[in-house]
């Protein structure tokens, strides 16, 4: 809709000069704690603005400064340079201590996404407790992805923009060691040959419940 308006009104309103657009992006990004998408930027800037280009200039401007312009997924944010972390008071947000199970589950979701609960269990060799997934969902580090087109159409999990933001990742492809893991074939979902014991089977009930509940949610 915004686009339509743009093209229609382009002739009526001239977009501000690029320098001004850069200032506007700067002001908007400075003002918020959350990453802002190009779309959102443009919806707040005068018609005909090209936020993507303004961001290129802005990113360059902040290179090497005390704060930097960073890309988080398909959004942008200003963050302090990480080499200056020592200056900051940490009292701010003490992230809840994650259990080892939660950390592993998170890593598996990040590296294997989109991944089903059964797949996580297969990798960890143990059932994934509901609480672990709930905690990660609650922190908004993971969310539900598309259903897998396999029997039972199980739900999958993927990581979120908040996760990327938290770990300073531009996108999930930047996960440390991802390439190496992939080329080593360790991100493949290799089905166990024959009679291997299915680990974490105990929890299938819980999983079924979950997927059932979500069925309705995701049907579209």
């Amino acid at each position, binding site marked *: 809709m915004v686009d339509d308006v743009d093209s229609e009104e382009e002739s009526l309103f001239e977009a501000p000069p690029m320098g001004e657009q850069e200032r506007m992006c700067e002001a908007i990004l400075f003002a918020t704690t959350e990453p802002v998408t190009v779309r959102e930027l443009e919806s*707040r800037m005068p018609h005909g603005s090209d936020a993507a280009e303004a961001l290129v200039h802005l990113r360059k401007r902040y290179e090497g400064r005390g704060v930097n312009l960073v890309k988080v997924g398909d959004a942008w944010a200003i963050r302090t*340079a990480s080499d200056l972390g020592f200056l900051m008071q940490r009292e701010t947000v003490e992230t809840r201590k994650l259990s080892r199970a939660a950390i592993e589950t998170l890593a598996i979701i990040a590296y294997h996404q989109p991944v089903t609960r059964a797949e996580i269990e297969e990798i960890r*060799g143990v059932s994934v407790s509901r609480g672990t997934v709930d905690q990660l969902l609650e922190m908004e580090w993971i969310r539900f992805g598309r259903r897998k087109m396999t029997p039972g159409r199980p739900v999958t999990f993927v990581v979120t923009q908040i996760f990327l933001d938290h*770990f300073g990742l531009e996108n999930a492809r930047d996960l440390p060691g991802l390439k190496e893991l992939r080329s080593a074939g360790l991100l493949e979902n290799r089905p166990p040959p024959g*009679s291997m*014991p299915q680990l974490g089977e*105990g929890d299938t009930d819980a999983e079924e419940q979950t997927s059932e509940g979500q069925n309705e949610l995701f049907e579209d």
Partner: protein
Amino acid sequence: MSDNTYDNVSSFDNVADRMAAEALIVDVDGFEGPLDLLLMLSRTQKVDLRKISVLELAKQYLGFVEKAKALRIELAADYLVMAAWLAFLKSRLLLPPDPTEEGPSGEELAAHLAFQLERLQAMREAAAKLMARDRLGRDFFARGIPEDVTRIKRVTYTATLLDLMQGYARIRTKDEFRPFVMDRDAVFTLEQALERMRGLIGFAGTWTDISSYLPDGFTTDPARRRSATASTFAASLELVKEGKVEIRQSEEFAPIQVRRKD
């Protein structure tokens, strides 16, 4: 489980055994399933996971389970299922392959187990690397004073003509009810009028308009005046009947006058 072990403590000969047993108990609690246990055991081989001897590993695992049994530690079903499978795998690996047998070979199964261990190990390392990254709120920071977008909610108010009229009707209706309560005061009863007339009539030697007998407060408000006029007129007639006053009216709608009858 701890009760069991406590009972068993006396059966251990020395402190070292006891310590080992305790470590075992703690560890079983600490393991995240049989795969995790296998991964831990594999470390004792001190080789790259790719070169691990699965046969050796199977033996270690089965040994662990035996020991747990001896200590009467109840292992979760998962661990026992894995033990059974590893026993099967061990026999497959030890016996020469039977060409009539179907399904994956012992080597294939062993390879998959090795893969699983390697993958779990890789995920552990990845998790560690992930958690070691610079993190928001710890190593880099977001805006401390966010100037959040003020959602200017421009509220426009509206009303329809119907709302307006209903509103007015509501007030006026309330008015109608007010007299309903007040009108009890607004009514000047015949008894009141009689009493008032009896008191005043003594002074009425000449013809006087009965409207001048209306009490204070009943002369301006139309409703009250009507009420008082009516009751005063009725009271006058009552007094005429008693022979105490005379009453007259010169023509239709002319003032009605009364005077004392001597």
